[in-house]
């Protein structure tokens, strides 16, 4: 802009100012599109609430298995958050996303679905797989097709099948919480109930874990070998119900997953038909944590009610199929991973009911 031009512009502005004296009341005002106020719920508030809801089982697990579970969980969380930070940093993206709590959830969930007796480098590797490959490379939160924690677990199971299926800890009966500290891979190898059930049958299960009523009680409270997230059905249900109460998740997915696992197990799970044990099927393995905390992951589950129910029933059916016919004793992880990529299709097939879409004939 030349000087003369500047003067002209200034003169014009002065002329306008002289004609219309500006009202000197208003400070600088923000403008934006409506609505001008919003609900207090934010992504990070929801995510941190989920993290809080996942904490009671961790506390219990310390008493049942010792401090090893806490260390494994911390390692996993640090790995996930660290991976998210480093990866975003390297890709030149904002690193603010580590504060939203989603990487923490992934870390906690990953620790909850691997045996607590694995060496510490395993959750680190799983965390990198979960966050970097499954989430960051797909574009970050909101763009991942699969549940990150479950991809981390699936990767570890495929790569280190021995550790991932045998590094279990037995519940400590003498209340010595330091028993397994630092023992890492030297953990006492024991077998999970589902493994026993699959390979040795109901009689062996009762021989090892006590009568059915004892099994129901111990499994419900969480006194049995397994992943942190597979042990205490009770505390997981409390946490899950809190999320439903807060309306952060709806009941449709958890209810349909649990109901369909029970139903299909009852029909196909025993000698002949209609002879399975649905209660045992729900309480053992990862059905509860899967139903409440993994299948309900916003990004990888449908948004509409019908879609959610179909999604949940699909997970239940695949879980039972894998448990009964597959090579693994537990199928929740793969069932959810198999249903995850169907989410966009389910959203497309099951649309919300419109208010009044079509003009009525002759109206």
């Amino acid at each position, binding site marked *: 802009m030349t000087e003369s031009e500047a003067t002209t512009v200034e003169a014009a502005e002065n002329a306008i100012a002289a004609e219309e004296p*500006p*009202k000197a*009341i*208003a*400070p600088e*005002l*923000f*403008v*934006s*599109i*409506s*609505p*001008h*106020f*919003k*609900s207090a*719920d*934010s*992504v990070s*508030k*929801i995510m941190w609430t989920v993290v809080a809801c996942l904490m009671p089982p961790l506390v219990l697990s310390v008493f049942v298995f010792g401090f090893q579970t806490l260390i494994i969980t911390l390692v996993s969380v640090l790995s996930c958050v660290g991976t998210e930070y480093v990866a975003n940093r390297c890709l030149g993206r904002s690193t603010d996303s580590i504060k*939203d709590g989603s990487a923490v959830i992934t870390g906690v969930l990953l620790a909850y679905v691997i045996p607590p007796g694995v060496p510490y480098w395993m959750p680190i590797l799983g965390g990198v797989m979960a966050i970097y490959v499954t989430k960051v490379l797909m*574009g*970050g*939160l*909101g*763009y991942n097709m699969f549940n990150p924690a479950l991809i981390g677990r699936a990767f570890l199971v495929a790569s280190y099948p021995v550790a991932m299926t045998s590094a279990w800890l037995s519940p400590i009966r003498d209340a010595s919480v330091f028993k397994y500290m630092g023992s890492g891979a030297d953990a006492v190898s024991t077998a999970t109930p589902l493994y026993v059930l699959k390979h040795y049958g109901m009689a062996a299960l009762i021989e090892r874990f006590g009568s059915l009523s004892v099994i129901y009680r111990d499994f419900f409270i969480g006194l049995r070998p397994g992943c942190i997230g597979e042990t205490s059905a009770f505390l997981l249900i409390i946490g899950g119900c809190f999320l439903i109460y807060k309306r952060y998740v709806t009941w449709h997915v958890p209810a349909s997953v649990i109901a369909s696992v029970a139903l299909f197990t009852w029909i196909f799970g025993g000698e002949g038909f209609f002879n399975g044990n649905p209660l045992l099927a729900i309480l053992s393995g990862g059905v509860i944590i899967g139903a409440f905390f993994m299948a309900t992951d*916003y*990004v990888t*589950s*449908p*948004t*509409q009610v019908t879609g959610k129910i179909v999604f949940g029933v699909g997970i239940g059916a695949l879980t039972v199929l894998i448990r009964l016919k597959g090579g693994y004793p537990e199928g929740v992880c793969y069932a959810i991973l198999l249903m995850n990529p169907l*989410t966009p299709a389910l*959203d497309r097939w099951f*649309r*919300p*009911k*419109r*208010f*009044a*879409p*079509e*003009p*009525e004939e002759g*109206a």
Partner: protein
Amino acid sequence: MSAETLCTFPMGGIHPPESKELTEKLASEVMPSPKRVRLILKQHVGAPCKPLVKKKDKVTEGDVVASVEKLGANLHAPVSGTVKGVQNALHPLVGNAKALAIETDPEAEPKTYSPVDWTGFSREEMLAKIKDAGVVGMGGAGFPAGFKLDVRPDLKLDTLILNGAECEPYLTSDHRVMLEHTKDIVEGAKIMLKILGINYCAIGVENNKPDAIQAFNRTIAEDTSKNGYNIVVKPLKVQYPQGSADQIMQAVTGRARPSGVRSSVIGIILQNVYTTKAVYDAVALGKPLYERIVTFTGKGIKKPANVMVKVGTSVADIVEYLGGTTPDLAKVIAGGPMMGFAVSSLDIPITKTTSGVLFLAKDEIDTEPYLPCVSCGFCVDVCPMGLEPNQAGVYVEAGRGKDTEEFGVDDCFLCGSCAYVCPAKRPLVQFMTLAKNDLRAAARK
């Protein structure tokens, strides 16, 4: 009033903080005429008005100063004074707009009106009076009332609904009108029933205004000249957007208006309660619409109030009259917080459709960047039209707004429920608006 008897709409909706306590108990106060008024020439649906007066002309309060031949509404001088010509003024929605400026004569006496018996007027006479008085929908739409009431005779109407839901948080101007002019509104309802040739009128009022509901019930019960008209009050559940056209019609009558047709097709005429009062003023008093109650509220203004102001008064003048703004004022909104328009300056004239001006403080506004969609589905749950704002938003972000028809973008009336609940704070109303624009552009091609 038990919760079971409350009418409401069938799907979606939210319940944001009502925030009406700031002004709901404050009787409307009359602000003295400002030094000058600026009448925006298009403050209604239809064509802009053409001025009928020239610079330096003397006008008297209530004179027609601008008119339009086709669909539209006359403008009247809100004050007696001298015409200063056509100027530019800021309009909250369209930005710069042409406005007719009038300088007030401080000596002029305010004009007074006295009611006449309207029952002898014919339908045509009453319609002409309403059109002459420049009455438009005062809830925000600004559709000329005279044209809305002039229904094609082949359409079978059976219900007149008065919209007194006032579901927008903060706003209380309709509430005050219902309390302070209950009789006028009931009379206005009878005028409109006579014009429409029907006898049933339902007044929908959200249940957070029990005094207004009582006032209507009392007035209707005491009314000795019902002439066979059946006027009832329907208390509505406090649920946003209860006062939206489709939602209140469904709540009151159970009828859903199919997408893309006028309400008269399903036998209903819907008018805002304040518009009904303006209809009464036009027909019984012969008073044109040139002043109204506007709610000035929010933490950003020193003295919240319901003020009776002349159309064309600058918001800045009213703020000055009320004692100014607070130091932490950050955002000014013409209208309510859900569907109102943020303005960049206080120097904007009040129009016939301005029901409130909201002043928000720094700690009440959201300036955080938004996040990608996490597919929580909250927006789908709260959409009162059963649409998918999440999907439309993602398409718009990807530059594919023209492919969003299947998500029901056309039915969206921008109520903002989706953006209110979105935990990622996505500007879903903006995405919907952009999608509408893209669809319209694609349709033109």
